[in-house]
């Protein structure tokens, strides 16, 4: 093995810090839950937000990994290892799904079909019960994870073998898997988005919803990868590898994804707002009220406007240390976006105060400790660059110069 690209030793320290912060989050979570008075309900609600957030980053990494193989842009292989490590956390996420399965009754309205008295609503849920029933729900999620884990393992195996043998046929094979793989991935992600998030409001439906969450995952993953790259670029050996040009390309990718996210979100809003149909618009009305209205404005500004304007600057994109602030902003906004999508469904039209949502921060930070611990464990276990990839010199050269 080529030791040139071994992970820096203090990555373990960063892993420890992440785990520590996660532990603090869990403590805060527990305290918050005991104070809330409704431990079971609040636990599952805040758990779902944390789960969807971290699963989103993991899935975004898997999707980006496949796009990286398909896109043919050589610089992409520089971020291949972080993406692989991010995808590997899907194993953790599969385990962490178990509590969601346990708490279905506390999370999803459609679990209580029998107790609904409104006849129309009841008829609709009866119709949907073919899809929205606990057994099928869990089977489906198992299938989604099977698809994702299969793709992750297949790509990982090829990439690690490439380190040993340097056989370019392995890259070809990874590319061949990535095409159909991405298709399966997208379909699984779409239905996961429908099941996990959209079905919280059993009546509401939107055909773009799957794509919206897929793009959101991509945004989160790239923002996360930028942060990791900045950490790595300050240490041996990646300080010789990651150059302004690479950050420039990552910044452009983030800009494009942020624009696509805004485009999808705006389209959904415009179509539903203009249509003003009784089965669609209540979903938005709930989210325009009180705190959610302010958070919605925060999303327009922080998830689109601000990153968009900042990322237009070439100098900012080329400077990793400044780019990382935009990346953090976007990651925070991803969290707020998921909060905005999920939590109003638990409130039935009575939005709470900002402090009521602190528990969601605690749960997400808590789960984040575990997630990041897993991620850094993976990242440390292999060389940080696929050093046997024949296109590596080109990718390195692509970062150099002016």
């Amino acid at each position, binding site marked *: 093995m080529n030791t040139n690209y071994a992970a820096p030793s203090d990555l373990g320290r960063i892993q420890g810090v992440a785990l520590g912060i996660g532990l603090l989050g869990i403590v805060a979570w527990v305290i918050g839950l005991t104070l809330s008075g409704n431990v079971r309900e609040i636990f599952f609600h805040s758990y779902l937000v944390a789960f969807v957030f971290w699963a989103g980053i993991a899935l975004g990494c898997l999707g980006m990994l496949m796009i990286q193989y398909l896109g043919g842009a050589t610089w992409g292989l520089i971020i291949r290892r972080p993406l692989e490590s991010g995808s590997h956390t899907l194993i953790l996420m599969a385990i962490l799904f178990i509590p969601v399965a346990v708490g279905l009754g506390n999370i999803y309205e459609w679990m209580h079909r029998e107790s609904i008295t409104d006849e129309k609503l009841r008829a609709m849920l009866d119709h949907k019960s073919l899809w929205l029933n606990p057994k099928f729900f869990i089977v489906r999620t198992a299938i989604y994870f099977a698809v994702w884990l299969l793709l992750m393992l297949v790509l990982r195996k090829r990439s690690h073998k490439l380190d040993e043998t*340097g056989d370019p046929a392995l890259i070809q094979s990874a590319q061949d898997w990535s095409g159909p793989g991405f298709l399966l991935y997208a379909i699984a992600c779409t239905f996961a988005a429908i099941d996990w998030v959209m079905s919280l409001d059993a009546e509401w439906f939107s055909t773009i919803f799957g794509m919206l969450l897929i793009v959101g995952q991509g945004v989160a993953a790239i923002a996360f990868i930028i942060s990791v790259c900045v950490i790595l670029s300050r240490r041996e050996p990646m300080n010789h590898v990651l150059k302004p040009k690479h950050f420039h390309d990552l910044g452009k990718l983030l800009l494009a994804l942020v624009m696509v996210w805004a485009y999808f979100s705006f389209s959904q809003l415009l179509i539903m707002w203009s249509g003003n149909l009784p089965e669609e618009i209540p979903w938005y009305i709930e989210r325009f009220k009180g705190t959610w209205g302010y958070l919605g404005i925060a999303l327009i500004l922080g998830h689109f406007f601000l990153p968009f304007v900042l990322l237009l600057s070439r100098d900012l994109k080329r400077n990793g240390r400044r780019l990382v602030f935009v990346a953090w902003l976007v990651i925070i906004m991803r969290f707020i976006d998921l909060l905005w999508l999920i939590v109003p469904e638990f409130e039935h039209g009575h939005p709470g105060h900002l402090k009521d949502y602190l528990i969601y921060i605690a749960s997400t930070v808590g789960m984040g400790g575990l997630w990041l611990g897993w991620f850094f464990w993976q990242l440390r276990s292999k060389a940080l660059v696929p050093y046997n990839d024949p296109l590596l010199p080109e990718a390195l050269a692509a970062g150099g110069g002016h």
Partner: protein
Amino acid sequence: MAEVFKKEGYVDPRPPVLGPGHNFRSISEKIGDIVLMRGFQKGWVFGFAIVFLGALMLFNTIGYLVLKGVGIWGNSIPVAWAFDIINFVWWIGIGHAGTLISAILLLLRQSWRNSINRFAEAMTLFAVACAGLFPALHTGRPWVDYWLFPYPNTMGMWPNFRSPLMWDVFAVSTYATVSLLFWFMGLIPDFAGLRDSAKNKVQRSIYGLLAMGWRGDARHWQRYETAYLLLAGLSTPLVLSVHTIVSYDFSVGIIPGWHATIFPPYFVAGAIYAGFAMVLTLAIPVRKFYHLEDFITIRHIRNMCKVMLATGLIVGYGYLMELFMSWYSANTYEMFMMKNRIFGPYGYMYWLLILCNVLVPQLLWIKKFRDKLGVVFLVSMFINVGMWLERFVIIVMSLNRDFLPASWRMYKPTVFDFTMFFGTIGFFLTCMFLFIRFVPMIPIFEMKTLLPESKVDEHKVEEHISGTSVGANPLPQFGD
């Protein structure tokens, strides 16, 4: 640092984007001579004659339409939008590939685009011209179409900016304008090249006029490159916005089958899909006829096939989502719409659409087929048809059985619907024939940048400088 890891003996498996044995002059001549040669080739005259007949058919239909009114078409309540809007969307979609090839691929630094972008941009312009005809004529009184624009008038009224049809006016006119600017801007240096190698005075003055005095000044090139890149950056969201707004024409309304949030990305993907199919439909014969195999290589064909496959899958994803959501919505009208779409009186159209747009293009997964021009050509023909059918399915089949069963009525196109549609194809091809003959269809100056000798080699620059800077002694001559 880099050379430590350099792999020896690794050969890039991709075929080149420019055939071997070319230099600056040969590129100028090979492409420029198609434009500058005297007279016309027989094949060109023959083809032009045929497509011009199609254009004449269009002009006649328009003349008759203006005399008689839109009643000569088959549109009638409840199907008030039919061939006109289908064709509009179809043409706009075809236009999009042009902008995407030239703009997005430029931003992604994909040098393989250089040989096909001019061609694709021209296609965009002519397709948009064809597209614009339909809504303009569908207004019924095309001579007052200027009412669509907001201008102070004696009636004291303004257009309704809440209507997607109004957005469409702005989107399509902006798109046409920006595409024209982009195309013309790309042509300026090539016009200068044609001016300088013109074979007679007429050519020299016409191309000279178009070149506007371009002289390849290094400062000019810098501003030119920046402006061109920025135009590409602007065109990319623009092209997405145009088909998005076209999709809003439908989705903002509440007709089942139209009102779907997935419409924007799904229309955009469909547009790229159709557009790339049209580029291939045109490029494969032109490449053969003008022997441009060195410039439009198998790499281009392969890449375009991959783009088609990817966008085709997004379109398929859209069908899947519509299908699933119409059931999942538990909404009577949504469910009926889907049932009508699949098993209704026009059901065969839906199945044909699935065949053309979803099933046949799956052939492109296979590498061998992507290299076979015959197969690629055939698949793109299927997609051209399929994308037209898609608009038929969406537009006519959502309207002909609306909320009120008493008003249900089958739609039947008249002969004028067909002469109008095939007429625009004739008109489009007429424009393409003229373009190929009078404008360099491959950007000459951009092709030159693909040559290895076009790059400034810093080592050589150093050599020149160290060889000449002392100055006092007689020096060896460089560059001969």
